[in-house]
């Protein structure tokens, strides 16, 4: 029931992920951050088996950092996406990772980009993409309301429409979502959309 979706706007890319950490019928926590900062100008939103998700995205993050240390310049979004696909493809016939990824990034030359990387290492550059059961709702909402070069307000409006649709129509809909954005100023958290707040743990 993990919902991940993203879209490209005018000079920025947004990715949204639900924040429930679920084990069978139990919700462990509902403020799990599934969108990782790959480097200053890249975001990786991942869904799938929790262990694989954290392990694989951290592996990609560290290798992207290593490239920057070795070569003095950061990878482009396309290069990072192809590297990620390569790792998934190599592991596919040995020890497959069950992680679906939306990689959003901003380059000076290419602008904002969004890459869809399946768990079986299908790579495709998209303007709008989604994974999970939520994709049935978010993709349809985006098909209806999305257009190229949306402003930030329009894009967040569309994101909220998608979240409302998922919340009202998906049977075991996740209550909380995190929205992250990447543009020329870098990758950062934009907002949370919470309908259930975790009770804070009293300190000892």
């Amino acid at each position, binding site marked *: 029931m993990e919902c991940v979706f993203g879209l490209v706007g005018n000079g920025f890319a947004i990715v949204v992920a639900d924040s429930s950490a679920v084990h069978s019928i139990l919700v462990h926590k509902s403020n799990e951050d599934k969108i990782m900062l790959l480097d200053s100008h890249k975001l990786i939103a991942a869904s799938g088996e929790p262990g694989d998700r954290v392990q694989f995205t951290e592996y990609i993050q560290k290798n992207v950092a290593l490239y920057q240390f070795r070569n003095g310049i950061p990878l482009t979004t396309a290069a990072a996406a192809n590297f990620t*696909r390569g790792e998934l493809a190599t592991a596919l*016939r040995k020890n497959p990772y069950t992680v679906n990824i939306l990689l959003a990034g901003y380059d000076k030359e290419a602008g904002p980009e969004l890459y869809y990387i*399946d768990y*079986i*290492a*299908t*790579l495709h550059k*998209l303007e709008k993409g989604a994974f999970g059961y939520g994709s049935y709702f978010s993709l349809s909402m985006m098909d209806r309301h999305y257009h190229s070069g949306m402003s930030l307000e329009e894009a967040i409006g569309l994101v909220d429409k998608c979240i409302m649709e998922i919340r009202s129509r998906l049977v075991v809909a996740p209550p909380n979502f995190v929205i992250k954005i990447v543009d020329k100023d870098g990758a950062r958290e934009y907002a949370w959309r919470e309908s259930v707040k975790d009770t804070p743990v009293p300190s000892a």
Partner: protein
Amino acid sequence: MSIFEYNGSALVAMVGKNCFAIASDRRLGVQLQTIATDFQRISKIHDKLFIGLSGLATDAQTLYQRLVFRHKLYQLREERDMKPETFASLVSAILYEKRFGPYFCQPVIAGLGDEDKPFICTMDSIGAKELAKDFVVAGTASESLYGACESMFKPDMEPEELFETISQALLSSVDRDCLSGWGGHVYVVTPIEVKERILKGRMD
């Protein structure tokens, strides 16, 4: 659902008078859901050699990367481009290497060989070559494509008529297949130029 039908594809290549045409659909799907409507299935190896890869998209991407690598090495060693017949044998050998763990792809190879004689062939996922003098087809819509091509094909067509024929054959066949479609991508190659055209068909 078979693994060959996971992403959905339609490919066809036809021989004309000193020219050939190769066409594909543009849908990338994940079983019943459409992910993208601009997926490139046909890639250029060199100016007079094109390969289309139907079947599982991740294997098509991996196989394409391997083939480009092998062709670039060949170019460095031989200081010339590969002939289509040679390339077809290379693809066949690479596919048979994985005989007991194959790439789930069916390639369609089209090129201009010695004296610009058109060459087309297809093969199954383990490299069994099928040479033809008229047309070859692959993908989920292959049965419809066989019928459409058989009835529409005429030998020695000029490039413009060849383009019309292959386009009509492709569009009418993918309309009968739910897993392929969303337009078409046609390359018509003559000894002097390559014409790439996008077709608009039923977008469903």
